[in-house]
């Protein structure tokens, strides 16, 4: 057994999840493939969204995959960093906007 929870080699085995539940895995991968097809959003825009979300959910596999995918789709490094800042801004904003809830509660409790 490896001594780390995450192993880069495991990313290549993603498809193996179908070994224990093929029907649902097939549905997921088919859906996944369709999601990333070019639509109103370009394939590059979708890749950058995936990169930002990958950082939000802090998935090392996704960060690995979508760093590469963004570069392949022609994104600039600056653009990739901007995408991560969008994720960071939403994350920190989400924390801070709850401050209003805290303020409401504190005001209610206080004289």
């Amino acid at each position: 057994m490896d001594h780390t929870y995450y192993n880069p080699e495991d990313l290549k085995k993603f498809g193996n999840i179908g070994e224990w539940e093929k029907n649902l895995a097939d549905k997921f991968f088919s859906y996944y493939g369709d999601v990333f097809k070019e639509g109103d959003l370009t394939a590059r825009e979708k890749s950058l969204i995936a990169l930002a979300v990958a950082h939000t959910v802090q998935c090392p596999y996704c960060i690995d995959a979508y760093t590469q995918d963004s570069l392949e789709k022609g994104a600039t490094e600056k653009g990739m960093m901007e995408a991560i800042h969008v994720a960071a801004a939403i994350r920190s904003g989400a924390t801070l906007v709850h401050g209003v809830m805290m303020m409401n509660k504190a005001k209610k409790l206080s004289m």
Partner: protein
Amino acid sequence: MIKSLHARHHQLANQERQVEFLQNGIFKSGKLPTFKQKIEPLGHFPLKPAKIEIFQMNIGYMCNQVCKHCHVDAGPDRKEIMTRDTMQQCLDVLTHTTIKTLDITGGAPEMNPDFRWFVSEAHRLGVQEIIVRSNLTIITANPKYHDLPEFFKENNVRVCSSLPFYNADKTDRQRGEGVFKGSIKGLQMLNEVGYGKEGSGLILDLVYNPTGAFLPGDQMQLERDFKKELKGHFDIDFNNLFTITNIPISRFLDFLIESGNYDDYMEKLINAFNPSAVSGVMCRNTVSIDWQGFLYDCDFNQMLGLKTQESSGQNISSFDVSKLEQREIVVSQHCFACTAGAGSSCQGATI
């Protein structure tokens, strides 16, 4: 400016060493399949040519640039230059065969002292299509090259130029400091005489290749991006963008090894192996000629010293189309770059 592997006496400057590298390691251990093992079950081994349509001449390895990924290991220190005698032999072949396209590459082919004579002769003799792979910065490198756009126009040359990205950052990291600026100027000078302009009949194509150990994206999407950015920022027009996958030989192979990307890159190429790209590989309709007149299946095999099969003739002095069209193409693991994804060739994606 970095130095060529050749100037550094690097082990990968040795062709046999490169071939050895591509046959050993992960491939010898059986961790990854070889190219032969992948194409054999498809009935493509031995790989056989179709009709020869492209006569690609590498007229010298000298170049004013030293790009980090260069498969030729070109640079100012390279002295290998094709002579006028060998060029004449090539012209004789072109006039006695039905090959339509002459594709001239280097190094910077314009640095060959007989370049203009050769192109003018090919044009005069009626070669249907003459492509020059120009690196763009050569046009402004020295006043003696400033009139190259006019020269190309006079000889109805199709210009094909590398520009790995539409910004200076990525371009200069791969091709050297200041290359983007020089390339933009070169493109504007080509546009000024009509290249890339609608209705001019003068074709200017760009070549995109990834600036690292990853595959090229969709050719049409990248072409749209390049057109929008180059037009918007620099008022530049061009015809087509060709995406080319970086071939794991020479300086790009050195980069892959030094950066610890070699195994992953090869695996990526193999995972992206597209069976339907095999029949469209460029070695099936191309013959490559080096500065000494030796023949190869492609410019990449040329750099690995892998000549055409002996029985098909190996030198321009014994050029025989029918024998060459019967040959077995020499393959190794670098060939995976031409069959990955949408396929890759000197004319871009093949699918």
